[in-house]
């Protein structure tokens, strides 16, 4: 039953989210440094009395388990605390930024999957041909180039040599006129960051698709399809790809966490106003509540993505759909 599976998975997910919260909370508190110092530092020259009063105000003088309990209780109600640095509720900061990150991540992922599988299928048609070798070379380059390096190279190229795409920010106030103009402008700004983030995964998906296609193409049911008189295009596009795409779904789901963390780098390089830049700034400012909140949110995103992957896999593979 699909519904039962979803409910069961949701229950697991809630347990997982709580575990993530607890673990992150404890990890942050294991880190050296006193948050009170940070808060006081912003104000300047703090005496022991000031620090004590700050600890009292923020509940930092309580035992760790009490702090944890208070945090969890508040989190259950949607309150992730107050940012020391921005002096605003963490949840508001995150909700402000999460859309930009999701837009970047899903565009990059969509680009990687669509272009990657297409290249993989083309490469599998002639596994020793020029196109296939070209795809292999592009894949190796894309896979081995670090994200920040690719980003910086693109910035250099598109800032001075070919000023075709904007290299920073998400939109340009002077160009975003009306909702349509805004969308177009955001899309224009999205090109370079999404490409930078996507190219690594595109490389992997094209290799994976090529290997997976070659394996599927050698199977007996492909011979059956040919014996039925199915055209080569349909043999590849319908009979083979439907089977070859199964490992891609699995890998894409598993890598989703990696893509989100890759987004931190890309956002920093391109000054994209998402969770990544927020995380980067919060870490520099030692803004613990914000860091905790971002970690929590990215965990939730990854868990939800895995849930969706699982469901997608069920749709794509009847053998899993039917299994208990």
């Amino acid at each position, binding site marked *: 039953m699909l519904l039962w599976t979803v409910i069961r998975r949701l229950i697991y997910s809630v347990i997982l989210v709580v575990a993530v919260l607890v673990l992150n909370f404890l990890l942050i508190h294991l880190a050296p440094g006193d948050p009170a110092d940070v808060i006081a530092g912003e104000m300047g020259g703090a005496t022991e009395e000031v620090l004590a009063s700050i600890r009292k105000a923020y509940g930092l003088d309580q035992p760790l388990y009490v702090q944890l309990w208070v945090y969890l209780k508040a989190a259950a109600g949607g309150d992730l605390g107050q940012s020391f640095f921005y002096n605003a509720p963490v949840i508001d900061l995150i909700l402000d930024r999460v859309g930009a990150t999701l837009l970047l991540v899903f565009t990059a992922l969509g680009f990687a999957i669509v272009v990657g599988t297409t290249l993989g299928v083309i490469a599998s048609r002639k596994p020793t041909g020029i196109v296939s070798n070209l795809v292999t070379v592009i894949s190796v380059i894309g896979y081995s180039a670090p994200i920040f390096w690719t980003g910086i190279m693109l910035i250099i190229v598109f800032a001075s040599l070919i000023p075709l795409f904007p290299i920073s920010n998400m939109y340009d106030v002077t160009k975003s006129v009306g909702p349509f103009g805004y969308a177009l402008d955001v899309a224009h700004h999205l090109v370079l960051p999404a490409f930078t983030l996507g190219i690594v995964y595109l490389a992997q998906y094209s290799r994976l698709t090529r290997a997976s296609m070659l394996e599927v193409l050698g199977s*007996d*049911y492909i011979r059956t399809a040919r014996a039925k008189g199915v055209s080569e295009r349909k043999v590849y596009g319908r009979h083979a790809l*439907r089977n070859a795409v199964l490992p891609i779904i699995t890998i894409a789901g598993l890598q989703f966490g990696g893509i989100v963390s890759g987004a931190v780098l890309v956002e920093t390089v391109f000054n994209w106003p998402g969770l990544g830049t927020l995380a980067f700034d919060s870490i520099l400012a030692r803004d613990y509540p914000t860091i905790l909140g971002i970690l929590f949110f990215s965990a939730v995103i990854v868990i939800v993505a895995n849930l969706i992957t699982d469901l997608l896999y069920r749709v794509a593979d009847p*053998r899993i759909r*039917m299994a208990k």
Partner: protein
Amino acid sequence: MTVLKVDNIVVDFATRRGNARVLDHVNLEVNEGEILGIVGESGCGKSMTALSIMGLVPSPPGNLTSGSIYLEGRDLVGLSKDEMREIRGNEIGMIFQEPMSSLNPVFTVGEQIAESVRLHENASQRAAWERAVEMLRAVGIPEAEVRAKSYPHQLSGGMRQRVMIAIALACNPRVLIADEPTTALDTTVQAQIFDLLEELQKSRGTAIVLITHDMGAVAQLADRVAVMYAGRIVETGTVEQVLTMPRHPYTEGLIACVPHLQPDPPEKREPLLEIPGVVPSLTELGDGCAFAPRCNRALATCTGRQPVLKTEGNGHATACWAVEAELENV
């Protein structure tokens, strides 16, 4: 009337160790409503003959070097890819030896049968589906309407082979090629599949090329039989001729290898016979008869020249120097 005529086809495979002649001037004829058995050891070219007829010889490395294949008088060799695709699944259907893996796991069996119908006939989705259900019923699958919505993994091996037969016969082909259709199945299921093939052949008049190494199946089903060895046909004739009066030493050996159930086993049981030696590598065939190194009746001529099929008056043909010499002496 001859439906399918394989005329002197030669298939070569380019291998690292040189050219392998996989099929060496193979001739076959299948008449309307007839079952032709092709028997021989693994690697003798049975399946390659089938793939040649289907136009599915993997190329590269394979290549149909010469010869013709006539389907109702029309030469299939040299047809364009599109023309050949129109013939596959429509005029010639094929079933394979691995029913467990021959069906696409992500489509229902009904979809897979209906696809064949829609490829070759101008049928609506609904009509194609109805034909699929009807075909499932015809191949003896109970609750066909329900089963059509099943995925392959939900069916047993025997059921899957029935589905394969339904796919192959969905467009009412003139010829059905069955490439070891029961090798992967239980004995009882084997018998069911053979019965089904026989019944369908009778009710639909489809000519069947039955590729097998099961002599029992040939005896039960086939009208005529061709024995292959190392890419050549070494003996052909009616089932009665070949199985009861085998001429070629290889055929004799094959028949002697078949184990028999004896109701009262004698005290001293006889060991099961085997043909000594192994099938020669196709890249290292000499000028002589390929079977000569394993043959207990080999003559001096056998290693020097390749024997050709010599037909006796009753249609029984053998390619063997020893047999030829014997028949001349009679």
